[in-house]
């Protein structure tokens, strides 16, 4: 196990606004007796991409899912500590997780279009939930979200086809469009390219570059090159702890912690 002293934190973001959009404070997730992640404190800056890397089983996905209360669905998960969104604790006693998830969108490892819904209905699914049925407004939002997700040109003539009829890469961009349509403040991405071919992956990466102009993005990835390409800040997780967090360039060229260096140079992982 790592001792608390080993955790090294370096300062602030290199570019973009220094505004901290989200922040976790001493966040611990336990499944029964098993500890998923332990005492994670990490800032997420606005208009920037934060990458979480580390060997599999290190807790990066567990941490990500704690950021929009997805663990509420796992009956055995116990969470202590705080996650602040614009200064408010999302684990506060009066907070409804449903509201939180509308502010913090999520994209998953596997593309998850609702297979029986049309492409259009997939994109506006989150809007229909809250009773928005104005066709004009829905059309507008759908087009905008699909354009943001760089999918509009490919599907504009077949919006009524089922979501399952798209290719894998398109399905993932559809999932992103669906998350964008509800205008979240933060987007969490859990290895969004791991089930895609290289060409689709690079499209998603370009997309992340575009999106960070408007959103705070957290991306979990097992692909270090990807983390290096898309992120501004990087956190390295190991055995459920945050070993090192800092500016991506710095971490990749000059890591402070030995384990980070070993991981980045491929000695384990």
């Amino acid at each position: 196990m790592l001792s608390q002293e080993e955790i090294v934190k370096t300062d602030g973001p290199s570019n973009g606004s220094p505004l901290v959009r989200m922040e976790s404070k001493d966040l611990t997730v336990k499944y029964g007796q098993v500890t998923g992640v332990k005492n994670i404190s990490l800032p997420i800056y606005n208009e920037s991409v934060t990458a979480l890397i580390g060997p599999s089983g290190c807790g990066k996905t567990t941490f990500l899912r704690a950021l929009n209360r997805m663990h509420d669905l796992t009956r055995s998960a116990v969470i202590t500590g705080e996650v602040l969104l614009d200064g408010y604790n999302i684990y506060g006693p009066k907070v409804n997780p449903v509201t939180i998830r509308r502010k913090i969108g999520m994209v998953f490892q596997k593309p998850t279009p609702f297979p029986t819904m049309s492409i259009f209905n997939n994109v506006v699914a989150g809007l229909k939930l809250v009773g928005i049925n104005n066709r004009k407004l829905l059309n507008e939002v759908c087009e905008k979200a699909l354009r943001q997700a760089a999918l509009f040109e490919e599907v504009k003539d077949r919006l009524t086809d089922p979501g399952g009829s798209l290719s894998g890469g398109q399905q993932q961009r559809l999932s992103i469009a669906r998350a964008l349509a509800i205008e979240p403040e933060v987007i969490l991405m859990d290895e969004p390219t791991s089930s895609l071919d290289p060409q689709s992956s690079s499209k998603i990466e370009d997309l992340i570059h575009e999106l960070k102009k408007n959103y705070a993005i957290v991306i979990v990835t097992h692909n270090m090159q990807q983390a290096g390409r898309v992120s501004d800040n990087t956190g390295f997780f190991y055995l459920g702890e945050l070993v090192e967090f800092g500016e991506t360039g710095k971490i990749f060229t000059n890591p402070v912690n030995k384990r980070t260096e070993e991981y980045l140079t491929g000695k384990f992982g």
Partner: protein
Amino acid sequence: MQENQTANPELKRPLSIIYRWLGDRIFLTVTVALGSSIILLALSMAFVLYSESSTTWQEFGIIGFLRGTTWDAGLHLKFGALPFLFGTLITSLVSLAIAFFPAVAIAIFMAEYSPRWLSGIIENLVQMIAAIPSVVIGIWGIFVFAPWMRETFYLPVFTWTADHYPSLLPVLGNPIGYGITTATIILALMIIPYITALTNDAIRQVPKEQREAAWALGATRWEVIRMAVLPYARGGIMAGAMLSLGRAVGETMAVAMLIGNKNTLPFSIIGPASTMPSVIINEFREAVENLHLSSLMAIALSLFVISLIVNLIAAYITRKLSITGGQLV
């Protein structure tokens, strides 16, 4: 042990040819013979039912028999299947309509809402209830349910109708307690466990990712079910409903004990009626006339065809509406 000896190829080389080639040959032949006998069995069911009922088809013709409304085994020996076709379709369809939503509701509650210990209890209960023999349900129906229905509902409704709309009495029927409504309610209770079990299976097939995607859009629990779970599971649920309809169509003993066994149309709402299985059970043991026996076999063949169609539709739905890997197949 034998295995240890034969495990060493050196030891059994002299036996090799017989042991290996002939052994495999014999084993395969025996297996295939046993397996194929099931094929024969299924085919023979259709063939036997047809050949045993041929007299009836010759006498009345297929259409004539199916549309015939008279079932007279006494004087005129005239047989028509319409009352039983009608009785079977009404009881099974109405019982499915009654059973479907509560049964699906239990499955949803079990799979999505209730704590794990409670789901376990409900699931075991549902499976246990599905295993109760039809005759056991029947005896409860005869001695408890039917008299209770008569006292609590049929008699008051009958008296009220007699006072206010006496002309409707023939439509309502005799309040003896045994009749089409009683049988249908029991039938609904009996198929609920099947629909629940099959719906539960279908809901369990819904990938975790689909649910999470809906959660991540800020859906409430019910919205997750409506948006992600039910659309994904709909093929399985519909197929389950069809299979349960097949059960209701073929359900014999409890219905025969409760439906009152009236062989002539028109049926009334609470009065006695008959279904295809119930008339077979009631009359086959006592039938002596050749034409009577053959007509009961003709009813059986019709039941066979209906069951076959219902099962084929269920298989078709499963194949057509099942969803794999996020894609509609």
